[in-house]
Every structure is written in C-alpha cells, then in structure tokens.
C-alpha cells in the first residue's frame, strides 16, 4: 500500500511537471502541421506566463487570466505569422527572434508584478480536486483524477487536437497545406488563412501552457519562469512524431525525469544531472534517425515544413 501510494504521488507530481510542456508540444505540433517550424515556443510561453499572471493579479478572474495568457501567446504568434507567411521570411530566424523578444517582453511585464501573489479566487479555481472513486484507483488515480482542472485541460486539449488534425475537414486542409501547399492552393484551399489560423492557435496554446507555471504551479512571479521548457517542447514535437496523443506520453515522461532523479538520490543512486538533461534531446535524435530509416508514412514530418510558400514559384 505504501509503495503504491508513493508511486501514485510521484506520478501526480510528474503529470504536473509535464503540463506546461504538453500545452507547448501540442501548440507546436499544430503550428508545424501547416508547414511552419516555430522555434518561438519558449518566447510565447513566457509571454503567456507574464500576461496571465498580470491579469490574474489585477482581475482575480481565472477565466480572464487564461484567456489573456492565450492572447499573449497569440500576439507573439501573430508577429511570427506575419513575417513568415505574409512576408515569407525565414522561419528559423523569426522563431529565434520571437523567443528572444518574448523573454524580454515577459521580463518587462513581470517587473511591474514581481512580489505579487496570485489572488485566492484564482488559486482556489485551479486547486487540485478529487474526482470521487476515480481518484482512488491505484497508481494512476491521483495522477489523473486528483489534479487541478488546468492539468486535466491539457490532457483534453491534446486529445481534441488529435481529432482536429486527423478527423476533421479543417484538419485535412491544414495537413494538405503542410504537405504540399501548391496542391492545396490549386484545389481551392486558402493557404494563407490556414497557415495564419493554425499558427495563431498554436501560439494560443503555448501561451496557456506558460501561464500554468506562473498562475497555478508557482503562484508567484519568477523571471524566466519556463527556464528552457520551450526548447524541450520543440525537441519533443519531433519525439512525438507530430502526434498529439504521443505528445501526452512525451510530456509526462519528461515530467517524470527530474522527479526520478530526486527519487534516485533518495535511494543513494547517483546519476549526473547533465545526463538527464541530455535525455530529451538524445531521445529526439534517436527518433529522428528511426523515422528517417523506417520511412513509415504517418511518422514523417510535414513535407513542406520550413519552406515559405510562394504562389508564383512552381
């Protein structure tokens, strides 16, 4: 019983540590599925974290706070979309710039709110709650059913994103744009609209993910709160082979990683933390090698990923 309890508490923390990353991976997948590599994930997360925190503190309204966080991520994505889609700028450079911009923006906004604490109304709205009976399931009960609604939202969003991408007409069009924008264009799909819509949607999710850290997990403002989580998300997009369902696994596995290190310290096992920090990237490289060798169709990156689309250039 004790060991079961310990495992379930461990998983509960791991899921919390994977939540902001899950939002970010799903946001990144949606963006990459229309053919845009967005390295600005970290920047959009930070923008969301800062705006969400500011609005949470000034209004005390949890819904507004989440919306503001999403809007901030969306605003960052709008800059990115305008440069890469309308002006056809280089996606890698633009993404990097967005991360640098977002970090500065968040630091600037954060200056005026540092020292504040998230008001009680928001804290209680996102406090972990037990779903009766389900939360008593051994091992996974606490991880899934004794959590904040924000954590559960991430899971729901990932599942919805899967259906959106794979089972809806809009998802079909978006995938077409990401695979072969010229063909999509020829068949009457509005490429610019689909690119904008999905990049902005992805940005919204990244912003919401960042805000999880500032308004739910930490409830105080800490500068550069994501501390590189956005980059891990970029790597895990590939690890999950652009599939939001696998993203759930990737995010929670990552959330487990640090916790496992702490556990092992308790057992007296020493693992250099540099090794653990390397793992998500090593795993990503392994997956990249694997999918390039196996050439399984559903695991491939969108064909037109990274290429700006010029209608006149065929």
């Amino acid at each position: 019983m004790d060991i079961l309890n310990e495992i379930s508490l461990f998983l509960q923390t791991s899921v919390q540590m994977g939540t902001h990353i899950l939002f970010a991976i799903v946001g990144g997948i949606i963006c990459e599925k229309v053919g845009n590599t967005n390295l600005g994930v970290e920047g959009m997360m930070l923008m969301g974290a800062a705006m969400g925190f500011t609005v949470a503190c000034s209004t005390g309204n949890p819904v507004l706070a989440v919306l503001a966080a999403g809007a901030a991520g969306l605003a960052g994505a709008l800059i990115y979309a305008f440069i890469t889609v309308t002006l056809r700028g280089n996606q890698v450079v633009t993404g990097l710039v967005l991360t640098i911009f977002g970090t500065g923006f968040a630091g600037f906004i954060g200056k005026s709110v540092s020292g504040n604490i998230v008001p009680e109304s928001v804290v209680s709205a996102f406090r972990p709650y037990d779903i009766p009976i389900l939360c008593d399931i051994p091992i996974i009960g606490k991880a899934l059913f004794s959590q904040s609604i924000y954590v559960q939202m991430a899971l729901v969003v990932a599942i919805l994103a899967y259906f959106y991408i794979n089972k809806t007409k809009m998802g079909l069009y978006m995938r077409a744009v990401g695979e072969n924008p010229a063909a999509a264009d020829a068949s009457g799909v509005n490429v610019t609209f689909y690119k904008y819509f999905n990049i902005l949607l992805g940005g919204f999710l990244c912003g919401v993910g960042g805000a999880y850290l500032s308004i739910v997990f930490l409830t105080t403002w800490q500068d550069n709160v994501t501390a590189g989580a956005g980059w891990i998300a970029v790597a895990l997009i590939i690890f999950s082979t652009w599939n939001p369902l696998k993203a759930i696994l990737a995010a929670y596995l990552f959330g487990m990683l640090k916790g496992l290190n702490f556990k092992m310290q308790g057992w007296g096992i020493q693992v250099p933390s540099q090794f653990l920090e390397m793992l998500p990237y090593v795993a990503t490289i392994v997956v990249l090698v694997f999918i390039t060798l196996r050439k399984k169709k559903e695991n491939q990156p969108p064909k037109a990923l990274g290429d700006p689309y010029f209608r006149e250039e065929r």
Partner: protein
Amino acid sequence: MKKKLLAALLAAACLFTGCSNNGTSSSDSSSADNSTASGENSTAVDTDVKVGFVYIGKIDDGGYTQAHDAGRLAVEAMGVETAYVEDVAETVSDTCEAIRTLIDEGCNLIYTNSFGFMEGTVEMAKEYPDVKFAHCSGYMREDNMSTYFGKVYQARYLAGIVAGMKTEANRIGYVAAKGIPEVIRGINAFTLGVQSVNPDATVEVVFTDTWYDPAVEKQAALELLNKGVDVIAQHQDTTAPQVAAQEKGAYCIGYNFPTADAAPDAYLTAACFRWATFYTDDVQRAIDGTWSSRAYWEGLAANMTYLDELSDLCAEGTQEKVDAARNAIIDGSLEPFTGPLYDQDGNLKVEDGVRMTDDEIWNMSWFVKGVVGTIPA
C-alpha cells in the same frame, strides 16, 4: 553664435567639475569636513567614489540579487552615486563587458556578486589597477581586489533550531542547489541546529543541480514532502520550495531575503544576508582613503547575516532558544562547528571541544551525522 555660447558654457562646466574632483582627492581633511557637512543635509557626499555593481540576477528577483540591491540602496542613502548591471551571465567575457560598462560610466569601486564572476573580475582588476574591486564568495584576491561573503551558516544554525522545534515527523527536507562547500556548509550548520534541540530529527537533502529553476525547485520540494517531511528548508534562489510546502500543508524556511508573502501559511523564518553591512563599510573605507584588499567573512556578530523574525507559526518556546543561541554565537561562546562532530557514517571528524578553523569550514566537503543524502560528484 548660440552654438559658441553653449560650447563655452559646456567647457566651463567641465572645468568646474574637473576642479572640484581634484579638490576632493588632493586634500583629504577638507573633503572629510565637506562630507560631514553635506551628510547632515542628506545630500550627496563630496566624494569622487562612484560604486558599480555587477549582478547575476534581476534586482527584484525576491532572492539573492534583491538582497544585494538592498545593500546598494544603503550605499545610495550614504549619498554616494551607484550604478548596476543586472542579469549578467557567469562567463569571463560577459563579466568583463559588464565591468567595462560600469568603468565607462565613471565607477571606481566595483562589486561583482556571484562566484562565476571571479575570473573576469581578476582580469579586470589587473587591467584597471586604479579601480577597486571586490568579488563575492570567491577566493582569488589582488592588490586592488577584495573578497567578501557572509557567514550565513550561523543564521542557518538558528533556522535549524526553528525547524527542529517545529517538526513532528522528525523529518525535515532540504532542497539544495549544487554539491559545493558553500551549500554543504549550510546543510551541516542547519542540521546541527536541528539536532541541538531535537536529536532524533534528520534532514533529507535533494540536489537540483541548478540555482534557479522555479519549476524544478518546486518538484524537488514536492518529492520530499511526498516522502513525509513536514518542514522544507532551501538553498535555492526562488520561493518555489516554500510554495510547495504551503500547498502540502507543511512549513518552510526561506533563504536570502524575508519572503513571508510567498507562502504566508507555511513560512517560519528565513536565513538572510544583510549585504548593506559590508557595502556601506567598504564604501566608507574608500571614501576615507583607508580601503585595502581584504578577505571579508562576517556573520551574526557583525550583523552581516541574520535570521528573519519568527512567524506566528513557530513552535512555542522557539524564540527563547533562538535568542540564546544567537547571543552565544555573537559573544563567541558558541560556534556551530565545534567537536565532537561525526560524519554520516558515524566516524569522528572533529575531536571533542575542537573548533574547526575558518578555512576548514570554508572548504567543507562532507555531511555531518543526521543528514540523509549524498553529495553529487
């Protein structure tokens, strides 16, 4: 015509300021008179000392750098001009660039507040022999470069007393950054404090291998709390471990800076630095012309470190025990690192009645008995 007039005025202004600067530096006695006179009016001291600070973090980080910046503000209150560069990366090139920026702004006394700034500060001290430097927490000194630090382990010993009195599980968690002597020393002093009032209690340590990563710090604290500890102490730069303690209904002890606001339902006290003590003393020496390179390492007695006021959550009788220990440390009758001290395996490391020297304390690399955890390689 107008331009000529302006130029003439500027030139006159330059001449004037140049003169007044020469005046102060050439005759010490007159400048001292001036400074006392103007000090009473609480305006600028008549000195050419301008102080620059190189910070590892942001001045409002609610932790390490904010504590330093309180010291800078105290220097400003003396009427001395200051400047700072924040968020400087711990590389030699970034350190040098930040220092050059400050020197360009006219600073002639420069403090660098993080261990990783050491090499860069040494390099700059050699390049600018007329500028005075002081580096926090390092061990390299030059003729124009001091080192300074606070004996925060003494405050941690007092914090240990608070935790030892509070814990009911007799298990205390400690979220630590890196396995270096500064951190180990703090854990040991804290544990000795705990065991001085509660010999049965143990201190369980996890290392995060980062000074600053709020989410990871909180995760580390949650892991400890899940294992059953009921007080969390920390050697980390954010309040995240304290937030974790509050969430799990446990108690916490802060570091660097009083942070009762971050976790009001969990906060017991914090082991803090009062950097103003060193900064004002050192700047005064520069003004008086008595500045010389030194190794400054002071604690409770010099008011360089202190324990924050105890919150209402502390166990009954804690205040008395803390006061007694504090007074004993200040008058020298108590030194936490006095034998008999045993390591984790029970081997006698320090003989009964023997006090460890400052050097031994500074370089500590083993855990005392009562600490549960291993020092990362």
